[in-house]
């Protein structure tokens, strides 16, 4: 079972690469937010998997929980930015 988890987690890491690609290439900030949010949700899974790999599930679940709780805080903050500062193409001017 350990090896299954190991390879699954490697595969998840690979998936994170894909999300990270979206986060890096953009093109808008919102796309980056999607990418980062996706990375966040994969991170939670990966954290628990690491817990299994260490055979100390009970310790890692707290971190994952904290992560799940707070992951969307950053996204909310960023989206709140657009509620108050309109104009997404701000950045286009300075590209």
């Amino acid at each position, binding site marked *: 079972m350990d090896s299954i988890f*190991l390879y699954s*987690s*490697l595969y998840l*890491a*690979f998936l*994170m*690469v894909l999300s*990270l690609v979206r*986060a*890096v290439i*953009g093109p808008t*900030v919102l796309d*980056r*937010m999607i*990418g*980062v949010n996706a*990375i*966040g949700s994969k*991170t939670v899974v*990966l*954290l628990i998997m*690491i*817990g299994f*790999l*260490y055979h100390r599930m009970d*310790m*890692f679940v*707290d*971190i994952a929980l*904290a*992560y799940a709780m*707070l*992951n969307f*805080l*950053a996204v909310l*903050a*960023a989206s*709140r*930015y657009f509620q*108050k*500062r309109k104009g997404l193409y*701000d*950045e286009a*001017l*300075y*590209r």
Partner: protein
Amino acid sequence: MIWPIDLAILTLVVVAAIGALRVKDLLGASILFGSYSFMMCLLWSIMGAVDVAFTEASVGAGVSTVLFVAAVFRTSRRTRD
């Protein structure tokens, strides 16, 4: 310590760091910086530093990105590099 994942994430971390610095938009940079700290958190837990990972998770996800966004909100998103 689970070295294969460690290697993979380490590489990702570098990509995220470079991405955060190259994005020509401060909001994007702060969001990418958030992803950087997510991965750092993963890295710590991979290396068995649960407490550090916990801290990084709560700080990176809960506070530092929000602070960045708040500061960008109060200043400007504009950047030339």
